[in-house]
């Protein structure tokens, strides 16, 4: 397993009876990246994360976190990783200060002054019980606990699920700002794709347990493009254009989404007898829909 990678899996598979939740996953997350792990609900994101943190047994394959085996070295991994789960359940009866004191004992690298700074920054009341706090506030507490020991890798599983728009924006940007300043790795899953674009530099897309895309956001955007084709007569088939993901036709205009975009794609489009071709950049959300939608259709 490469040490330049924060997370690496090989043929990682998890079955629940007949259902295959994760199917031969080959994932590589570079150290120092802000990696967005995207997928629809039930695509296998949480299952993958739970396997990485040894909260779930894998059926087959290998999974390494920070160069360590996720089962054999799970204790060491937990010491070096911060984790915020989706709808995280903590101890409702504990006060914020109590849970900070409780968690502190488990980490040799716990930084009291950083914890205090986070508490102030996140505006957390020390004397309030977790059970009496809103979900947003609870998510902030979870984030503090995950970050105060200065983890090498921060794993966030749908961290903003259930939060309102303003809190979501503050939360994600705040996290990325705080952790990325120190060149640590952030691996976060989300199905709210539009939010990810502002913060991620790497993107992985999982669908029905399989990784269907993994690259930097820049590479992804350079690779997946929309070609708007204007025809003089009704459009013919676009089958000759390589790697077409979606086709939308309206009158004498067709918009096709292609992956692995290159001059070859353009040349192929022009060969269809179009009067005009324009190339448009796509948002991450559109790319995601195109990639996942293509698999849906196939």
């Amino acid at each position, binding site marked *: 397993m490469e040490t330049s990678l924060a997370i690496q899996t090989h043929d990682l598979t998890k079955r629940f009876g007949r259902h295959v939740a994760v199917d031969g996953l080959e994932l590589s997350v570079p150290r120092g990246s802000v990696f967005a792990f995207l997928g629809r609900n039930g695509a296998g994101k949480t299952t993958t994360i*739970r396997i990485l*943190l*040894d*909260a*779930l*047994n894998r059926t087959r394959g290998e999974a390494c976190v920070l160069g360590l085996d996720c*089962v*054999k070295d*799970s*204790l*060491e991994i*937990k*010491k070096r990783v911060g*984790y915020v*789960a989706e709808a*995280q*359940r*903590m*101890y409702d*009866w504990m006060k914020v200060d109590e849970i900070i*004191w*409780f*968690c*502190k*004992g*488990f*980490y*040799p690298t*716990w930084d009291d002054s950083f914890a205090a700074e986070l508490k102030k920054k996140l505006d957390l009341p020390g004397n309030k019980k977790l059970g009496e706090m809103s979900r947003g506030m609870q998510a902030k507490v979870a984030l503090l*606990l*995950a970050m105060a020991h200065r983890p090498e890798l921060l794993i966030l599983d749908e961290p903003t699920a259930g939060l309102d728009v303003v809190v979501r924006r503050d939360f994600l940007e705040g996290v990325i700002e705080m952790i990325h300043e120190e060149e640590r790795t952030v691996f976060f899953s989300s199905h709210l794709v539009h939010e990810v674009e502002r913060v991620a530099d790497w993107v992985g897309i999982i669908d029905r347990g399989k990784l269907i895309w993994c690259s930097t956001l820049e590479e992804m955007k350079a690779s997946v493009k929309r070609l708007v084709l204007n025809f003089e007569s009704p459009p013919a088939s676009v089958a000759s254009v390589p790697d077409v993901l979606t086709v939308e036709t309206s009158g004498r205009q067709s918009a096709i989404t292609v992956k692995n975009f290159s001059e070859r794609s353009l040349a192929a489009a022009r060969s269809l007898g179009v009067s005009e071709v324009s190339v448009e950049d796509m948002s991450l959300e559109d790319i995601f829909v195109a990639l996942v939608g293509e698999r849906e259709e196939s």
Partner: protein
Amino acid sequence: MGSTSIWGRVIWKEFRESILIGLLCLVFPIVGFSMKTSTSVVLAGMATPAAIFIWAAAKANVRSSRREFETTHLPLPAAPEWVASFVFPAIVAAAVGACYGYWGSALGNSGHAGALTLVAMRYFLAGFGTIYVISTVFTVWPATVVSLGWLFFAAYMTDSLFKNPHASPSNLHAIIFLHRAAIAGALGSVVFSIPLLKGSLRVRQVTALLLVAGITFGPYVKLIWSPEPASDLYSRIPAEKSSQDRSLTVKPAELTWGSEPLLSYTDYRSSFSREREFPWETRPIGFGRRGTVYLAQQRPHEKEVTILAWDTSTDHVEDVVRLRAGRKALRGFWEWSGTVSPDGHYVLIGTNSQLGEGTDLWMVDTARKTSAVLLANAPSGYDEVEWFGDKAIVGGGKALEVDLKEMKASVADFALAKEK
């Protein structure tokens, strides 16, 4: 940050989380026993262990499915995890059991507070361990079903755990069973905390289940093939016996599981005492001359009762006679197991009859080491003896007049005696 810090924290957390269930459990016996109606006692008797067992089931299930913050998020080593998830709650369960037994006894005026405390503690601990493992291996629901089984089992199993406080402390097989179950529960829970076994959930499940089933019920498997019930299944440990003037006593000393019980003889007039280990199935009958204690012993599956004489001054034990008997253990122990004549010459004892369900009434001449059946397969109830020189009157059913020299008994005719 050292491991001490982790231990302190997990125990603090478990303590805080256990306080509520602990207090809740103690409310039932207090309310129930203070009301002192049979219904409330039964309800209280069931409610406390039920609460503890359901708590065990829920706790184990959360742990095994690794849904808890502590187990999924924190770098918690196996040992403190086991202590936090099993040992500490088990201690709480045992403590609740101790309070339950003590208060139950005190409020019910049973007068056996110490013994009941121990019994209830064992029962709660064993129940907690078993339910915990079942819930870990399966889910909460099978564990809840087993919990109900435990509750009824406790009421039925020994005829004693709670219904008959006089008998419960000395029901050896109940004690052994509960010890086994507690140990099995502890081992079963360890299986889930050993990192080496972490890889395969199935292996851990099967191992834990086999451990619990094997250790708890394994020794009873032989009963399935046994042509007759084991004679010792419900036998009981020796109890106290005192001379009529209370100057001599023989009673069990400290009882520890795994070793034979110590019988302790005390002569209060001379402040002499002696202890000796005897097999579980030995019971004191009475006192002879010069510090001799007569005892009866029936080993499992033996069709004989051996009368022993223990010379406490030399600590020498010898067989006096062997009496033929049925395969069941000595019966009628709580009511009457036998008696020795004041001069220590004769022993009268009831044994299980070889002929049926009744009692064979035996007489033993300890000096000549001979024995005779006075009454065969009699109904039980011959539990009163009066000694008159060379005669004895045994009361209970129809009174018997025993000629000690001839070693014969006849139905006593008191009317005839009066006329004469």
